[in-house]
């Protein structure tokens, strides 16, 4: 949005949407072929302006059954007996193709999800390719991974992924599964199916044997069909804690392996000796990256009381430079919320913050008239009892709390049902190590936040789930160990 009162107004720098090569309709991918689904197709929309992007096939129960049977045949017939080196070869091929089509995937991801092109271009897509490269390297080295001399795959993996990092989550799930010799049935999120279907195209072009990867799109009923099917040996789910619990209940009496990566309410802890400018960047990156729609988002800022004013003042000044708007503009920092339902949830929780007595602040920013938008928001004077300090908002809303001593910081940080991630900001190395040992979180970042690497395991404690993705640890979820 042009603001003529600015000295240096950045002219619009939009990435062309033609690069996404949007098709009018997309089909499901079963047994190496694209086909229509058994249920009525649905429209996927652009959350930035609520316009329809394309029609996407909706898988019916028969499609899920076909996909799982195809995966079983592929597992028994080819994939489980193929040499590790050959599986690696296919994975490298996929990785390179993702890189080659990176621009197309980035624009498509921003259109379908609402995230800024800077993030899809610089984070989502390169990391997705990196995951395929990383696990391609493990495929022929599994006997050296520390899971016994000849670790066996599990079989058919049903994988259900969320809408916040559509392609990246597909890569997190598919790459280790295939590297270990499993075959997969992947269900992308209902609101963001497009990049996973382009990935299916890439997989088809990479000549993977039919059935090794199947992609079935649709709503919760498709996920339920996968979970309740007795042909799956493993379920991997990333999403809300509520759905995760219901999956675990459904699998309670079955011999199906399960890994869950669920919600979070991470504490980002800033000590008085922190590098303040970098801490402020880390706070911004922690909660406004991907509009805060990140399970490991640093949604609770715990700042030492002696520097609380200085840090919040610096933070607010920094937030006035955030550019909110068109996700395809290369200068956009904060894009659109993914769906109307999510926006309603963010709004409802933010309102509870005001009602319960916290002080709400947002930088001056003009939001587009159409689409699902929510201004970056900071709540100060938040106490542990407030809903905004306890419930996962999954939006660009930061709750600021204070602490006086390291013990109090640990106590407050751990005082949550979740345990996915945490951040520690201090120039004192010994304090970082001491804090990391006491924080009940799967990932603890020191002087950084939301930093991902395929070699680093990721996963949670408590209601944030179990199992690890990424790194050598990520292999365990797909091996019979």
């Amino acid at each position, binding site marked *: 949005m042009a603001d003529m009162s*600015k*000295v*240096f*107004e*950045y*002219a*619009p*720098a939009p990435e062309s949407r033609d690069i996404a090569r949007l098709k009018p309709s997309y089909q499901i991918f079963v047994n190496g072929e694209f086909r229509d689904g058994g249920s009525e197709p649905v429209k996927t929309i652009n959350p930035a302006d609520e316009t329809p992007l394309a029609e996407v096939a909706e898988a019916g129960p028969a499609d899920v059954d076909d996909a799982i049977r195809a995966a079983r045949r592929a597992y028994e017939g080819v994939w489980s007996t193929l040499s590790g080196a050959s599986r690696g070869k296919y994975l490298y091929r996929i990785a390179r193709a993702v890189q080659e089509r990176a621009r197309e995937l980035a624009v498509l991801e921003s259109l379908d999800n609402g995230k800024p092109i*800077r993030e899809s271009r*610089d984070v989502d897509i390169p990391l997705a390719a990196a995951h395929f490269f990383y696990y391609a390297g493990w495929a022929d080295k599994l006997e050296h991974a520390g899971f016994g001399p000849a670790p066996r795959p599990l079989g058919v993996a049903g994988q259900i992924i969320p809408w916040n990092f559509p392609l990246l989550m597909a890569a997190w799930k598919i790459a280790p599964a295939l590297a270990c010799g499993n075959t997969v049935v992947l269900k992308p999120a209902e609101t963001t199916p497009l990049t996973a279907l382009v990935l299916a195209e890439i997989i088809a072009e990479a000549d993977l044997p039919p059935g090794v990867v199947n992609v079935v799109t649709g709503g919760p009923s498709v996920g339920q069909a996968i979970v309740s099917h007795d042909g799956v040996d493993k379920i991997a789910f990333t999403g809300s804690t509520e759905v995760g619990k219901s999956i675990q209940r459904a699998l309670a009496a079955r011999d199906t392996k399960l890994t869950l990566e669920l919600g979070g309410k991470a504490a980002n802890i800033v000590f008085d*000796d*922190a*590098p*303040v*400018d*970098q801490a402020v*960047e*880390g706070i911004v990156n922690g909660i406004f990256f991907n509009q805060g729609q990140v399970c490991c988002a640093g949604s609770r800022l715990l700042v030492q009381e002696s520097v609380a*004013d*200085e840090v919040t*003042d610096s933070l607010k000044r920094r937030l006035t*430079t955030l550019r909110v708007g068109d996700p395809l503009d*290369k*200068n956009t920092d904060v894009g659109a919320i993914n769906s109307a339902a999510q926006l309603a949830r963010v709004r409802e929780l933010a309102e509870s913050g005001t009602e319960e007595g916290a002080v709400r602040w947002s930088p001056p920013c003009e939001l587009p008239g159409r689409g699902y938008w929510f201004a970056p928001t900071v709540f100060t004077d938040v106490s542990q009892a407030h809903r905004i300090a306890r419930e996962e908002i999954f939006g660009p809303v930061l709750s600021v709390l204070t602490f006086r001593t390291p013990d109090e910081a640990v106590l407050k940080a751990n005082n949550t049902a979740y345990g996915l991630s945490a951040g520690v900001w201090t*120039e004192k190395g010994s304090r970082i190590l001491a804090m990391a040992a006491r924080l009940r979180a799967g990932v603890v970042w020191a*002087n*950084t936040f939301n930093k991902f690497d395929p070699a680093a395991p990721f996963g949670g404690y408590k209601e944030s789930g179990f199992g690890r993705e990424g790194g050598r640890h990520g292999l365990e979820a797909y091996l019979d160990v």
Partner: protein
Amino acid sequence: MLTERLAPDLVADVTRDDASLRRYLHGLPGVDQVGAEARAQVLATRSIKTTAKAWAIDTSIAMVDLTTLEGSDTPGKVRSLCAKAVRPDGRAADGGAPQVAAVCVYPDLVATAVSELRGSTVRVASVATAFPSGRSSLATKLHDVSDAVAAGAGEVDMVIDRGAFLAGRYRQVFDEIVATKAECGAAHLKVILETGELATLDNVRRASWLALLAGGDFIKTSTGKVSPAATPPVALVMLEAVRDFAAATGQRRGVKLAGGIRAAKEAVRYLVMVNEVAGEEWLTPALFRFGASSLLNDLLLQRHKLATGAYDGPDYVTVD
């Protein structure tokens, strides 16, 4: 601490001796190098196009201190540089490129530059204080300054004693800046930190504050004789320093980046950094400068490309 207002008596207190200065400078928040580099990198991804680019290129030209600092400098060389400073693209100001901010020379050539630039708004800057090493007695350094000022320099670019800084003799560095400032009289003082020799970003932050507390009107990265010179993370830390100093004292001081900036694209990226780190108030030649020589020609080539859609060859800008 930074947000507390820094009253004059507090400045006197923290600069009383080496120990007080050390406590103050080492009490500033640390700089995490990885984080600073990452921030600089993200800022460099801003995409500046069309009208924004045209504005940034003209603004950059107006911020250039056109510099020649060679042993082989002659009055002839300085005269040709001055002509270019006034009319960078050889055209009249109307529709042509704007004038640069200043011409920067050694003290013995100040008089030549002053007479050449008489009647124009381009300022004359002179390096001084035993530039570039600063390895001389204070008396000699001050004599260097008074020579330049007497010859008509409106701006003086001094170097700090990096040896004293690295040895922890902060009070000595402080005193030399104060003495130089006094010698400058009405001339503006730019304090060269030579960040390539200070090595760490923590040191860059401390040296920046030291220079600002001592009364420097500008803090400047480098002499151009040491590599690395101006880098994005160093510029970031220095811009944070003037921003925080303004918040603490109400006084806006300038930043000059010098050495190694040759491409218009880099200059535009630095303006983005100024805009988003220090703030738009700093987007003026009064508070931000580029010390450069070859940068100007690339700015002119890009300016022409933007206006006409075609690149000029290198023979269409003057070589000085």
